[in-house]
């Protein structure tokens, strides 16, 4: 059971608290609104700009990593195949790429074209 003396103290406190708690703010709402307005950032511009910059940075890093990790256009093992290789007397083969050979047949001085004998 509540002690009536204690209850009356609490009641008195509540009454005083209510009066204290309902006092107006020292700064008027109009003045406060003006101060707050002067400090408003532009979230609808500021945050997208940050997000855009972050996205661009991520894309740049991904692109750089992809470039560094990509295999070179010509595998090292195929490089030798692209060098001219003598196949026999007067025959030279070049490779435009690993699938495209070009064969040159060189005629000796004084022979006619097509005469290999």
């Amino acid at each position, binding site marked *: 059971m509540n002690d009536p003396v*204690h209850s009356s*103290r*609490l009641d*008195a*406190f*509540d009454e*005083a*608290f*209510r009066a*204290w*708690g*309902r*006092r*107006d*703010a*020292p*700064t008027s*709402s*109009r003045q*406060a*609104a*003006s*101060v*707050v*307005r002067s*400090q*408003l*950032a*532009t*979230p*609808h511009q500021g*945050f997208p700009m940050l997000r855009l910059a972050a996205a661009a940075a991520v894309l740049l890093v991904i692109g750089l990593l992809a470039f560094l990790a990509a295999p070179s256009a010509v595998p090292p093992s195929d490089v030798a195949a692209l060098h001219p290789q003598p196949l026999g007397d007067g025959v030279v083969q070049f490779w435009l790429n690993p699938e495209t050979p070009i064969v040159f047949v060189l005629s000796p001085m004084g022979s006619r074209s097509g005469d290999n004998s």
Partner: protein
Amino acid sequence: MSDDTVPLVLHARAGDRGAFTRLVELHWGRLVRFARSVVGEAEAEDAVQEALLAAWRKLPDLTDPACFGGWVGRITYRRCLRRTGRFRHLLPLEAAPPQAVEPAPDGEILIWQVLRRLAPRQRAVLHLTVVEEMSDSEIGTLLGITPASVRSHRRRGRDRLRHVLEGGRP
């Protein structure tokens, strides 16, 4: 929340500073009164100002414009809690032994001297109960706790108050 607040929130959410300024005017007094009971007179207005600037930044995240009042109240409450946490070493909280509160010469109870001996959550619940006369459900929604927690905080706050008003006697 009045019907004309919702269009203001919608305009503010779209980036209209004028609409947000009007919302500040409408809610300033209520928020400062609440913050005053949680962090004291000296810090109340700064806490509310911080909260309103945070609300402006977070406004695009507010899904239901009709909930603006409770939403900004909750942001204010969290800012106040952060402030009381920052200065915890300076303020005697629940763990501190209760001390007698000397009445002012004219018999007036020095409210903040009493309130500061309660935990910040207890102060918030007592303010919303005694000053704003809100229901447990409304208080729970605003503070982000259950109505049962509201009752628990209020009961502990009342016990503590009784203790303090008696001058620390059991």
